[in-house]
């Protein structure tokens, strides 16, 4: 088990290296003179020169690369032009906001996705199955930013049940937090819910056809044990592997959703950084998110090993 975790960890390192290289390269993609782009067209040559200095754009490519890694190893991702503060600082302080919403959305996804998928599988080819699968398909196809807007119009503007935006820290007022984050979480979760319901359903159908399910029935176990114990644990294995993807999609969606709901998280930070061309924030934010996801996937692998004894022991 430990050997397995170490092997996964060793695998993550080269990937992390390339991830950081990609983040670095983003800046190189800026056409023309990045300093001019950053400083703005109306900037004086002096201002452009200052930006160039600040970004280290005077240096040759390899020096830029080296200093990027040098800073990276010290946990320095540069300074936001806009906020004048270190990228790491502004990102990390907003991270709990984004994570709390992402977790909320993850819980919604897992609960509804798995439950609906299982119900559909158990009622295969009935109207229940078709209704769930149609809903899932529509969920997968809805643009989340548009869904967010519609939810605001319906639940905030017309019905007035929930606020149309803003954020309250959970520790301050859990109830207000729940009210503020429910619409964003639903908008974020819809796509993944549909995805997960579809995956769960097909996995469940696959598992129910396995010989060991027949064995469980032949042992006289009641259906709720056959499904709830023998099938479920096997269904969970592939479902766990997609948690990483689900989380990735949730963070993807957060830029738009946090912007729409005026939530002060990493997503809206990135959103405004994009509009103002605050490159260090874009680079740093991307790198942080990708690193987080890689580590999450590592965790998922470990969880996977826990659920699937075959993996656990093959690793030894």
């Amino acid at each position, binding site marked *: 088990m430990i050997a397995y975790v170490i092997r996964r960890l060793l695998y993550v390192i080269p990937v992390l290296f390339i991830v950081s290289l990609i983040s670095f390269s983003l800046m190189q993609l800026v056409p023309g003179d990045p300093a001019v782009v950053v400083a703005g067209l109306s900037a004086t040559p002096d201002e452009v020169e200052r930006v160039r200095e600040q970004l280290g754009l005077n240096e040759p490519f390899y020096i830029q690369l080296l200093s990027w890694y040098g800073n990276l190893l010290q946990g320095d991702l540069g300074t936001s032009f806009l906020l004048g503060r270190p990228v790491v600082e502004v990102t990390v302080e907003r991270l709990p906001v984004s994570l709390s919403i992402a977790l909320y959305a993850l819980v919604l996804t897992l609960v509804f996705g798995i439950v609906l998928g299982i119900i559909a599988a158990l009622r295969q080819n009935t109207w229940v199955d078709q209704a769930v699968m149609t809903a899932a398909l529509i969920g997968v196809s809805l643009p989340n930013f548009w869904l967010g807007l519609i939810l605001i119009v319906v639940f905030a503007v017309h019905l007035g049940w929930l606020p149309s935006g803003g954020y309250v820290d959970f520790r301050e007022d859990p109830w207000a937090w729940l009210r503020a984050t429910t619409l964003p979480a639903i908008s974020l979760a819809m796509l993944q819910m549909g995805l997960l319901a579809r995956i769960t359903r097909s996995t469940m159908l696959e598992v129910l056809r*396995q*010989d*060991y399910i*027949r*064995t*469980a*029935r*032949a*042992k*006289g*176990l*009641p259906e709720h*044990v056959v499904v709830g*114990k*023998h099938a479920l*644990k*096997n269904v969970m*294995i592939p479902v766990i592997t997609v948690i990483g993807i689900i989380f990735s999609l949730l963070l993807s969606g957060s830029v738009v959703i946090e912007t729409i709901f005026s939530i002060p998280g990493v997503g809206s930070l990135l959103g405004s950084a994009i509009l103002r061309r605050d490159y260090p924030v874009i680079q740093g934010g991307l790198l942080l998110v990708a690193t987080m996801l890689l580590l999450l996937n590592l965790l998922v692998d470990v969880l996977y090993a826990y*659920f*699937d*004894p*075959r993996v656990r*022991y093959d690793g030894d």
Partner: protein
Amino acid sequence: MSATLLQVRGLTTSFRAEAGRFEAIKDVSFDLGEGDVLGIVGESGSGKSVTALSILGLIPDPPGRITAGQVLFAGDDLLKASRRRMRQVRGGEIAMIFQEPMSSLNPVFTVGDQIVETIRHHERIGVRAARARAIDLLDRVGIAIPAQRLDEYPHQLSGGMRQRAMIAIALSCNPSILLADEPTTALDVTIQAQILDLLKDLREDFRTAVVLITHDLGVVAQYVDRVLVMYAGRVVEEAPVEALYASPQHPYTEGLLKSMPSIDTDADRLQAIPGTVPSPFELPPGCRFRPRCPYARDACDVADPPLLDAGPGHAAACIRLNDYQPAARAGAA
């Protein structure tokens, strides 16, 4: 024969496929007495497994459905029994083991878990006591260091050990009948013999009646008292094992025996039965074996013959017996 435990009467199971409904088994009947070992032989697709699964009501529905017959066991017709009653019977009074020990055990639970849950489902007994019994069972089916194996996962066991573990699960509640569906097909020859010997011992120790499903006539000769020969979903011959080998009455049985190598005959004169098993959708109008039969005559096209008496405990579905005159029936499917 000892007291009858199980009577199967006219069991017919059909499946829905894209091309329509077909009968996987038709009109299967047999009796099973206490401590009997009944062999069911036939090629794959002849309906052996469907018969066993139908008895326990384990045919997946859809696409399968038992359309006719009775399975009389301990005073009940299992085909009409409540779900509750069926759950008592399954694993408790009638247990089953399967062909693929690899896939028949749940990969994500330990062997012990899978035995203990069976015991605890059928009896009011604590975890500790159930575990003790599970260790005892593993020991009895010939697994070394059972206390350690109990906490291992199926993939950590060899194929033979897995099948032993399956047998331990099956025996965990002292069933009166064990349905063994090709229990050794997936195993090495040496392991095969060990498993079959184990089944034989168990039958002697527990007086468990065994239905041994196999396509291996060698196994039948060695371990079985009575044989049902199935072809294309029907029982074509039933006989005590000695009678079957001495004087097979159905041409299919004859063909099977001829295709079996033995020390007495020359290996290079083995005969295969010509042709293949018909698809269930294209059954011939009369006898199902007619297209492959060396004795076929015109009368064979008239109707599928019933089992005809061919001596004590011996019957075969062939019109050559007792000069049987088939009468054309309307609507013979």
